[in-house]
């Protein structure tokens, strides 16, 4: 028994020592590794063409590049293509392959890879093409091994923004290679479900190489532990902390404020009762006060919006739509009564539980709806369930999320409200809207096109497709050990610009 006791004591001592040393050794503070917290696991495949979630795309931004890519100003700059030209008509786009550009596995990028990538996204074999706009592609040809020519069916001056579509090796597309391989500044190393995604600097990158050698995206599925993780040093950066979380952080962290470039709204399923009635939708719009929501859940930060467009889009954004509905309880009640819900109504808001800002927003909304006799039940669901049930399955009444723009074109935001759009998860159905939208697509005149887009926005607001709230402020918490964070007008976390402070 003496042995037993010694065993016990030594086990205890060992565990304590391990515990105490194990933790003191902070992560390599040499700036060689940065750990970034992400609120959800990325999608099952790291396939940039099929990735739906913004949270996946913002990470893939570091791995993949298109022929062109957006910079932080929102301009498109050449990437895999070193230059491009558009004919005057806007029908033929010619891209020149960048000299010496290689994939992460060291193989040179060829025009075949580009062709295969574009053709894959344009393929209509299984219904809609992966990139909706690619249905306009007439042909993709490679006249020589340096050039790729994309010819459109109808002229489209705005088509270039779609060419940010990632270029993948032809072998990957044919299924011969499973590992994600791109041309971006970082290459994929490993992933562990619900745990992390590890990236490494690609030293053969054609452009300015990344500063930090290793990037770990760590899944923080419990948002309540974000602050703890940051303060404890487990993660160095978290994009989109809430203002409450930001307020909890010590001055070891810098809070960068930008806009999230999201259309945060209470999205309503226009196809199911009670939201198939425009009066009910409008009533909800009258019930809320976006500023109040921002005050409660965002410490007053954020920009009010009135339709599916946010300020970063400049000329397309219509601030005047903010006043389509101003909080008016009486009007809301009257509309409800008119729609046959004089005694109030009850519905369920599904909210992805990992997004604190949406959960918080939903809680404020619930309070606001109370005033007009509407009871909203909040159901928190896992992000993946949200994707499958709400987004894909469209099995919901209402949901609070933010919808982002995958490209720099207003189509990225407005295209989804066309009645038969595959991603029209709110089931919005308006003939008027469909006409306006297709008119915009066909138009080659910039002013006229802008006019049509604005018309679309007005219809969304007037028909109360959704209860629009705001473009939330994006607060990025980053450890002061690092600097160089840049905001993008699209969903992207450009890790290659981040460098150790000093």
């Amino acid at each position, binding site marked *: 028994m003496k042995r037993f006791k010694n065993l016990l004591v030594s086990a205890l001592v060992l565990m304590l020592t391990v515990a105490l040393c194990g933790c003191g050794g902070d992560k390599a503070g040499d700036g060689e590794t940065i750990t970034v917290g992400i609120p959800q696991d990325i999608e099952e495949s790291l396939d940039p063409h099929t990735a739906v979630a913004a949270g996946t795309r913002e990470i893939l931004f570091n791995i993949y590049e298109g022929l062109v890519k957006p910079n932080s100003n929102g301009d498109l700059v050449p990437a895999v293509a070193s230059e491009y030209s558009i004919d005057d008509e806007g029908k033929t786009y010619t891209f020149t392959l960048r000299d010496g550009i290689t994939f992460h596995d060291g193989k040179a990028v060829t025009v075949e890879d580009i062709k295969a990538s574009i053709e894959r996204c344009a393929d209509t074999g299984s219904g809609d093409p992966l990139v909706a706009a690619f249905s306009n592609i007439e042909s993709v040809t490679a006249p020589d091994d340096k050039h790729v020519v994309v010819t459109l069916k109808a002229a489209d001056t705005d088509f270039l923004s779609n060419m940010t579509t990632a270029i993948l090796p032809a072998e990957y597309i044919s299924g011969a290679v499973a590992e994600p391989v791109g041309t971006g500044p970082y290459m994929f190393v490993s992933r562990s479900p619900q745990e992390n995604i590890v990236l490494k600097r690609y030293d053969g990158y054609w452009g300015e190489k990344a500063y930090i050698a290793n990037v770990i995206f760590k899944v923080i599925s419990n948002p309540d532990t974000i602050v703890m993780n940051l303060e404890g040093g487990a993660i160095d950066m978290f994009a989109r902390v809430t203002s409450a979380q930001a307020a909890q952080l010590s001055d070891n962290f810098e809070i960068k404020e930008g806009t999230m470039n999201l259309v945060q709204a209470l999205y309503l399923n226009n196809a199911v009762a009670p939201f198939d009635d425009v009066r009910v939708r409008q009533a909800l719009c009258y019930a809320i006060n976006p500023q109040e929501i921002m005050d*409660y859940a965002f410490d007053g930060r954020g920009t009010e919006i009135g339709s599916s467009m946010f300020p970063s889009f400049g000329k397309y954004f219509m601030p005047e739509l903010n006043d389509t509905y101003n909080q008016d309880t009486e009007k809301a009640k009257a509309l409800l009564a008119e729609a046959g819900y004089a005694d109030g109504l009850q519905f369920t808001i599904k909210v992805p539980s990992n997004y604190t800002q949406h959960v918080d927003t939903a809680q404020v909304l619930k309070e606001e709806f109370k005033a007009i006799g509407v009871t909203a039940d909040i159901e928190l669901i896992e992000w993946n369930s949200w994707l499958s049930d709400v987004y894909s399955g469209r099995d919901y009444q209402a949901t609070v999320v933010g919808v982002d723009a995958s490209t720099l074109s207003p189509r990225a935001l407005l295209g989804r409200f066309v009645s038969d759009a595959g991603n029209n998860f709110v089931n919005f159905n308006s003939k008027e809207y469909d006409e306006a939208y297709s008119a915009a697509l066909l138009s080659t005149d910039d002013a006229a096109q802008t006019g049509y887009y604005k018309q679309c926005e007005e219809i969304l607001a007037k028909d109360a497709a959704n209860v629009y709230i705001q473009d939330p402020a994006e607060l990025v918490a980053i450890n002061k050990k690092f600097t160089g964070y840049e905001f993008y007008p699209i969903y992207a976390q450009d890790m290659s610009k981040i460098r150790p402070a000093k």
Partner: protein
Amino acid sequence: MGKNRRYDFNLILGSILTAITTVPALIGMIWTPYDTHTMNNSLKLAKASLMHPFGCDNFGRDLLSRVMEGSATTLLIGLGTVFIGVVIGTFIGALTGYYGGLVDDIFMRFNDVMFSFPSLLLALVFVAVMGSGKIQLLFALGIAFIPSYVRIVRAEYVRARNMDYVKSAKLAGASDMRVMFVHILPNTFKILLNSVLIGFNNAVLAEAGLSFLGIGVQPPDASLGRMLSDAQTYLFNRPGLAIVPGVTLIIMVLGISLLGKREK
């Protein structure tokens, strides 16, 4: 003498602690100092004051009111769980224990499997099947706790089956049902009471655990577990948000377990 004093001490302290948590919880079912859902921007994360003895949470909701509502929810789910478990568990335990035989054997085999499975996990599986929510949670936990009561009640019935008072009742012409539920049942109360107290505690802890995981009570409804989960963000500057519901939970469990100790 010294022994008696200790027993009394457990009873008194247990009653006091239980009262400290259950009385506000009971009041919380009908009245709270402030509305538990109404938000107030100016009181966000307010420190403790005369008006708000525990301060306010991140939406400016009075923490005392939230804790009262949360305790009430937790208490109700705990009681409901125990109720389901005891009623169904007693029924099954009585039947299998009284009649015995092959059905009893098979049932007990099954029951032992369920019993050896941690009840929290069992509840998790039920939630997986039934979906999350307050009512689902109540049933999930209730079902998960049945096996423990079946075990206890069955053992008592197996013992009682051959006792003289049962035999004489049978001789007097009492039906099986009557023997089971009129004659034997009251004799199981004493032992059942103790396991009810333990079961209540386990249910409270399980509820808090599952709500903490986000699959129990949904916001903005308060439950002690849910509040603890939310409070983690503010652990740095307002640890009180976690400590108040946490300590409430501890006091509730501690009080009941002291009462249970006294019962032995």
